Structures are given as C-alpha cells and as structure tokens.
C-alpha cells in the first residue's frame, strides 16, 4: 500500500482516485482532526473484516480522526468508534482536501 502523504502546495491536482481526494493511505497515518473517506479494507484475516464492518467502517464512509493515542478514535456518522493501531492500519482511506477539524489535540 502506498503511503504517499498529501498536503503539498499543488494540492490534489493529480490524484487518480477522484476530485477532492488524495492518494490512498492508512487510517492509522492520519493526524487528529483530519477527515477522510474509506476506500478499501485491506485486512489480513476475515475476522478483522467483520470487526471493521461491525464498527461501520466500509468503502464510501466518511470518517474524522478524533484521537490517535492510546488508540485510534474516529467519528463515523454520529458515533465515535475506537480501534487499535493494527486494525486502523487495515483501513485504506483517502484524505479530503481540507481538514475542517479542530486543532490538534493530545498527540
């Protein structure tokens, strides 16, 4: 999985996914306050897939990162869900162009 970071001055002009989105990366790599759209679930085990689906994480869903430590917490619909870093690694997202979230919180 490519982990190209976005946010360059040129923005997302050459993003191949869709206008307004950037190259795919892992949910675990996003900073607090960042909004992103889930693209793909790259799980190693079928069991992990069921966990992510149970949390409501599936392609097309918009998330906002609320916290990265001690576990990743994301806002999805109107709920907060927590997942550990290993699971968050499996969620491939593309970040939205503008981070509308609040200022960076504790790490």
């Amino acid at each position: 999985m490519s982990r190209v970071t976005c946010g360059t001055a040129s923005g997302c002009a050459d993003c191949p996914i869709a206008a307004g989105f950037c190259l795919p990366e892992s949910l675990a790599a996003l900073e607090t306050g960042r909004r992103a759209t889930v693209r793909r679930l790259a799980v190693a085990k079928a069991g992990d897939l069921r966990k992510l689906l149970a949390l409501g994480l599936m392609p097309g869903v918009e998330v906002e990162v609320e916290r990265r430590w001690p576990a990743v917490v994301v806002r999805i619909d109107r709920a907060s869900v927590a997942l550990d870093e290993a699971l968050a690694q499996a969620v491939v997202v593309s970040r939205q162009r503008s981070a509308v979230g609040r200022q960076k919180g504790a790490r």
Partner: protein
Amino acid sequence: MGFSRGVAVSSERTGQEAAPDATRLLAEGAKAGSEATWLLVGGPNVGKSALFGRLTGRYATVSNFPGTSVEVASGQCAFRGRRAQVADTPGLYAFLSVTEEERVARRAILASSGVIIHVVDASRLERSLPVTLQLLTLGRPLVVACNLVDEARAQGVEPDVGMLADRLGVPVVATVATTGEGVDDLASVAFQAAVPVDGWALPQPFAGVVSKLVCDGRGAASVRALEAELALAGDPEMESLVASSCRERWTEAEAARAAGWDSAEDFAVGLATARRRMAAALLDGVAPAASSRHPERGWRGALERVLLSPWSGVPLALLVVYLAFYEFVGHLAAGRVVEWIERVIFAGWLTPAVRAAARLAIPWPAAQDLLVGPFGLFTLGVRYAVAIVLPIVTSFFLAFALLEDSGYLPRVALLLDRGLKRVGLSGRAVIPLVLGFGCSTMATLVTRTLETKRERIIATLLLALAIPCSAQLGVVLGILSAVPAAAAVWALVILGVFLAVGWLAARLVPGEAPSFFMELPPLRRPQLRNVLLKTGTRVRWYFAEVFPLFLLASLVLWLGDLTGALRSATQALVPVVRLIGLPAEAAPAFLYGFFRRDFGAAGLYDIAARGMLSPAALTTAAVTITLFVPCVAQFLVMKKERGLGVALGVLAVATAVAFTVGGAVGWAMRATGAWA
C-alpha cells in the same frame, strides 16, 4: 427500490385507537389460547435493557445482568389485559458476528417465532438501519423502537418516525426508555404487529447469488435467506450450517459468488456497502444527514478529551477506583455497614433470639448446633450471607452500575488497551475484570464478550487467581485496615501476581493476538431508575446463586464437625498453614474458602478480630486467601464455559501460586524483620 410498502402504523395513530383494538385482540388471543412473544434486538448502548425493564416492569423475571447481558433474559409484559413474553438479547452490532454474545443474540433471532422489536438509537439511525433491513429479510413481524428520541431532540436531529414507517412498511415507534415515553404505544403496536405485507429482498446482484441457496423454496423473505446471505459472506458458523444442509446448492452458490466477487470478504463488503446506501436513501428526509453535524463540542467534548488522554485519564481512573471501591465499598460498606449489622442486628438482637428459640424448640444438642452452633445454618450461613456479604456486594454493584450507565467503562477500556495487550488481553477485558471485583463467577460468564478463545482463557485464569471479588476484597481490606502498610504490600503483591501471570500466560497460551475495537457510547448522566434496576437484578442473581451455597457449606461443615472429618481435614491443612507462617487456627478459613472465597475470608476476619495474627501473618493470610482457589460456583462456571481441562488447570495454578507467593511474602517479612 420502492419505498411505499403496505400499510404503516405510526405512533400517532396507535395511541388513541389502541383500546378497542386491544379488546378485539384480547378476544382473539383468548381464542387462540396463545401468548404473544416479543424479542428485543438491538446494538449495545441503545437502551435495550432499559426498554426491557419498562415493558416488563415489576413482572420482570430477569435471569441475568442487563448491560452486560450475555444470555437471553425474559420477562412478562402485561398491557391492557393482554400478556406478552418478552425476551432481551445481548447487544448486536451486525449479523456477521464477532463475539460469542453476538452469536447468542443471532441464534435467538433466527430461532424466534414471535414479534421482533428492533431497538435503534434515534440520533444514529444510519448505524442501526442496515440491521433493520436484514431483519426485514426474515419475513417476520417487526416493530422498530426508535429509542433515545430525547437525545435526538436535544441534538436537533429528531427523526420523522411516520415517514420512516411508511418507507419501511413496518411500525416505527418513538420511545424514551428511561422516562417511559412511547412505551405504551410500543406495547400496543407490538400486539398488533403482522408479517410485513411485502418482504424486503436483497439488492441485486446479491439477491441472485443468495437465492441459489434458499433451499426450502419459501422465497426471498425467510430465515433461510439471512442464513444463506451470512454463509456466503463468510460467516464460519452459518457456512458450516448451510454447507452441510444442502451441499449441491452450496457449491452452485459458491460458483455464482466466485463469478462476481473475488472472495467471501469481497461479497461481505459489497453487501454491507449496498445496505448502507439503501439505509441512507431511506433516511433521506427522515433525519438530517450525519455529515452535516460536527463532532461533539462543549462540556462533553472537553470531558471526553480529559477522560481519553492518558495523562489525565489514568490518574482519573485511579481516583474513580479509589473512591468507588476503596472508600465506598471498602470503607463504608465493608467497614461501617458490616460492623453495624454484625454488632447491632446480629450480635445484639437476632442471634440471641434465634439461639433462645432453637434451645426451646429443639431438644437435641446436635440438631441445635445445625441451626445455631459454630457452623450453624443461621450463625454461619445466614450471618455471613446477610451481615457480611450482602452490604459489600450491593454497594459494589451500585458503584459498577453507576459507572456502566454513564458510559465510562468503554473509555477505561480504551485507556488500558495497550497495557492489557501486554498480558494477552485487549481493552475489552476491562469489563469482565472490573466486574470480577464484584463477583468473579458473574465475571467469568461475561468473558464471553471477549473475542478469542485465548483471551477468554487468560481472563478466566486472572479472574480466578488475582482478582479478589468484592466480598473477599471487603473482608480483606477490613482485616488490613488496621495496618495500612500491610494493605499496601498486599495490593502490590496481588498486582504483581496479576502482571506476572498475565505476562506468562500471554506467552504460553496459544492463539492469535487480541485486537481492540469498540464503539464509544455517548457520556450520559446515569439514570437512577436504570442504576437501581441493574443493581437490584445483579444482587438478586448473586443471592440466588450464593445463598444456597452458604447454607450448603454450613451443612457440610456441621456434618464434618459431627463426624470428625472436619478435624482431620483441618489437621491435614495445619502443616501447610504453618509452613507459610500462620497459626493453626487459620486452617479452617482455607477450608471454608473452598465453598466460597468470601466465606474463607470471612472466617479469617473472625480470627483477625480476636487479635490472633501479627501484621506479617495478616499480610500472608490476606495474600494467600486472595490468590487461593476460586469458589465452587466459579469453578462450576469455569467448567461450563471453558471445559473441565481448563477449569482444573486454573485450580492447580491458583493453589500452587497462592501458597508459594503467600509463603514467600511471609518469609520475606520475617527475614527482614518487618512487623514480625
């Protein structure tokens, strides 16, 4: 996709018209001679158990513990002359289940024949509606209880239930379980619920594949359709069920799936995504879109950050533990309340009265002893249960219910996840582990909520060994309260054993590493009614479980005393007890411990109260009895949940560790001359 299907019953209409209908239905019900059955289904933290309490009210015969329900609880609902049997199922996020409790809920749904009441969170409909759509494929009478509308109203996202009902083709009732709003409407609608006129088919192209598997030809809307869907989506339990019951069709369906999707996982993701889109379309205009809302700000947001940041969250968690368990349970309940009940009620009044009555009524001394002797049913069994254990356990469950109802526990789970991974557990284990401080037997049952077998085994072992239950904890703290330093040594040793055994178990027990995933429910102000209901239910469960064992223990001890078997057993234990530096008088306490942990600790309390133990001996005794074997009830639950092999293994480990560590602590204290 068409929205208008059949006639929808919305809550506005049913409120007024319910009375004549109820009369008619009552007549029909009497004719049929059958009672309605309702099954409450829904995700965790949507107020399902509170709704269950409202529906069943004082008729409730709840058989387990709401909130952490791991089994199907049932009760009766009486409404305007009609009766319904109501069952509450454990929380279910999705039908593709992850944990054992979800599988329990799923089995109950697939096996039910009555009305299904799907309880959903009114302010997060998009999270529950995919499950509603799956329930619709069952072709069963279905009612949607749109709960927590008060929260939705406060957030300005109250859904239009009438519109939702029209679109789904099943009744949708707005409710607030904690205040009772809409509960009457729900009951009257549930009595009239019928099979949806038009069953909901799966979206194409999924329907084409699933239909190849529906063996009994009953069409798309049936239990079989859901089973087939789950099997094709790779659910292991459903796969083996469906594959074994109709092998040719399974091969055919697998081939069809392979033609359109790379794997079962792909199929599952595709189907989940399609359902989510259907749900979003259904909700268009019913409730404001989720993305238009910003994350929680204001005091809730600030509190959330304080609770979740390790820098403030961990000290806060320690403070909560100190206040709730040490001050409230340990000092107030186990200290003052127990002392008062013991001294004023039992010693001052009840025991002399019962003793005098027994002397008058029963001529044989041996039979008198059975009731009021040193091991008497009353003087030992009833007194321990009512005077020592009841106040401690009640106060613990009260504190636990408060924490549970506020939504605090999932935050602690998140905070401790990284730490617990070191001992082979995930943050999820916080709930059984904390509950274990109340009753380890109950907590062992709740380990079902853990995801892997490995986690369940490790949690079971740690609960049996290093988590003292509230009764034991209360008594131990009561004994040690005179010597605060001894209490500190005891706490450090138990914590050390917890970490060391957990660390070793994480390396020795085979299986995959745990992962942490959990929805964080909103922080809510605890509802007094809910808290009392939960506490009452748990105390009742505890007493039903414990009281007979206390009486049985008294009976066995009395018999042993009469026949001399007790003396020989105690004699056999004396060398072991002496070896770890305790007086011979402490031996019986360990013997009692076999019956109930707290029973043993309470026996120790008697010895300590007579001032027979030095501080070093006190610490040794407290450490040993805390680590010592689980009680009979816990052993039975371990055997039921984990199998005889694991149960015996845990027993052996616990006994060995208890005496080794206890002895080592005593030896170290004497060697260093500390409080000898």
